[in-house]
């Protein structure tokens, strides 16, 4: 997909996944690149994760390549200047005064082992909260995180460099017919419910899958898409796993895609994910995005698609809602 032809930019407002918590243990730094910015994430000795622009204001070294965590700060690999999580220079080891120019910082949040950054071209603080993989679905499926295997590393996969716009990927959430053709689904899921909630930040759909044998709905799945960055999916019925799918712009031409699976533990089982389940997730579950990508990579965006009759309402509602995540005016300061 040529993202330059799209009528919307790669600078949407919202929460976007950038990592899994397990990738950045305490005391470590990680270089990142999203939204056209070189970034560095580091976890202080207090366990808190910090995210800021990567380049040192002294002579521009990248703090994520060779930088070292010192307390809750990061030390530049080039000349040892020390920066705290607010982007403030707190120490120049060989001179008394420090510099006043700050490094730009970004809001991050971690939940259930996934790391998200808030992106807002106006620099406004987060305008809404992210859905919660467990708390948000209580009324649909009341299961606890402890009933699932740890996600990292075996329940995770990333596609680091795809010519795909995040917004396109979430059109799957209303696209009932692609399951048959793209994902080889034996029966077509039915869209049962659809609404917009959480002050317009979440688009929610409920799909049902019928059983081939009995023709009864044997599995439902509830999808909550947060802006144009992440979709949280909970399956209930024959399978009870949960999926987080995220897409994050790297620059104006590429995105990184993330998939995370919470797989239900067998009764009473503790510990890490058994090998057979690891293999199954790797070969059967974490491959769905590959199937979608075969289409997305080569798709040409159609602004006014000739939709099938049954899809018109959902598609129009989704696209109209998605348009609200671009070019927002600065949020009003409430303090």
């Amino acid at each position, binding site marked *: 997909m040529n993202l330059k032809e799209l009528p919307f930019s790669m600078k949407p407002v919202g929460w976007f996944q950038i990592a899994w918590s397990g990738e950045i243990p305490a005391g470590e730094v990680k270089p990142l690149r999203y939204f056209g910015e070189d970034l560095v994430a580091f976890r202080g000795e207090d366990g808190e994760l910090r995210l800021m622009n990567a380049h040192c204001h002294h002579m521009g070294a990248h703090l994520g390549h060779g930088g070292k965590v010192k307390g809750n700060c990061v030390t530049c690999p080039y000349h040892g200047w020390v920066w705290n999580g607010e982007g403030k*220079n707190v120490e120049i080891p060989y001179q008394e*005064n420090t*510099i*006043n*120019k700050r490094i730009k910082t970004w809001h991050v949040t971690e939940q259930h082992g996934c790391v998200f950054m808030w992106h807002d071209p106006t620099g406004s603080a987060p305008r809404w909260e992210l859905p919660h993989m467990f708390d948000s679905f209580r009324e649909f499926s009341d299961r606890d995180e402890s009933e699932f295997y740890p996600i990292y590393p075996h329940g995770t996969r990333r596609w680091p460099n795809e010519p795909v716009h995040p917004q396109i990927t979430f059109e799957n959430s209303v696209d009932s017919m692609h399951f048959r053709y793209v994902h080889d689904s034996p029966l077509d899921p039915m869209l049962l419910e659809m609404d917009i909630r959480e002050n317009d930040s979440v688009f929610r759909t409920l799909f049902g899958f019928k059983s081939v044998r009995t023709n009864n709905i044997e599995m439902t799945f509830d999808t909550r898409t947060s802006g144009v960055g992440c979709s949280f999916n909970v399956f209930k019925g024959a399978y009870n796993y949960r999926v987080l799918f995220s897409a994050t712009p790297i620059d104006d031409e590429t995105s990184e895609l993330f998939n995370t699976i919470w797989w239900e533990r067998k009764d009473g089982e503790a510990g890490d994910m058994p090998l057979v389940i690891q293999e199954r997730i790797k070969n059967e579950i974490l491959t769905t995005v590959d199937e979608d990508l075969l289409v997305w990579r080569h798709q040409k965006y159609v602004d006014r698609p000739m939709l099938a009759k049954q899809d018109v309402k959902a598609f129009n509602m989704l696209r109209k809602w998605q348009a609200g995540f671009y070019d927002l005016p600065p949020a009003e300061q409430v303090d």
Partner: protein
Amino acid sequence: MALIKFISVNGDVREVNADSGSNLMQVALDNGIDEILGECGGSCSCATCHCYIAEDWLAKSGTPDEIEQEMLECALDPAKNSRLACQVNISNELDGMVVHLPESQY
């Protein structure tokens, strides 16, 4: 101790007390004079503490050394009475000094 008058482009006057031994950039920062950025922290390497000293105070404020003169060339709209505030040391002699602030540092 010296009383310093900062005058911004729109004519706003802010009077602040400055301790002897400090420098004019630090005084501006400590008193919320946003027109002075002082990004390099006073090392005379960023020219974001540029200001204009009122003519009749120029002599008392001192003469810029070679490094400061070179840095002043990087400032936006330098003039004959331009100084880098971090290089102006506060002394009792500067009591009453008038400093004009630039519209912006970049």
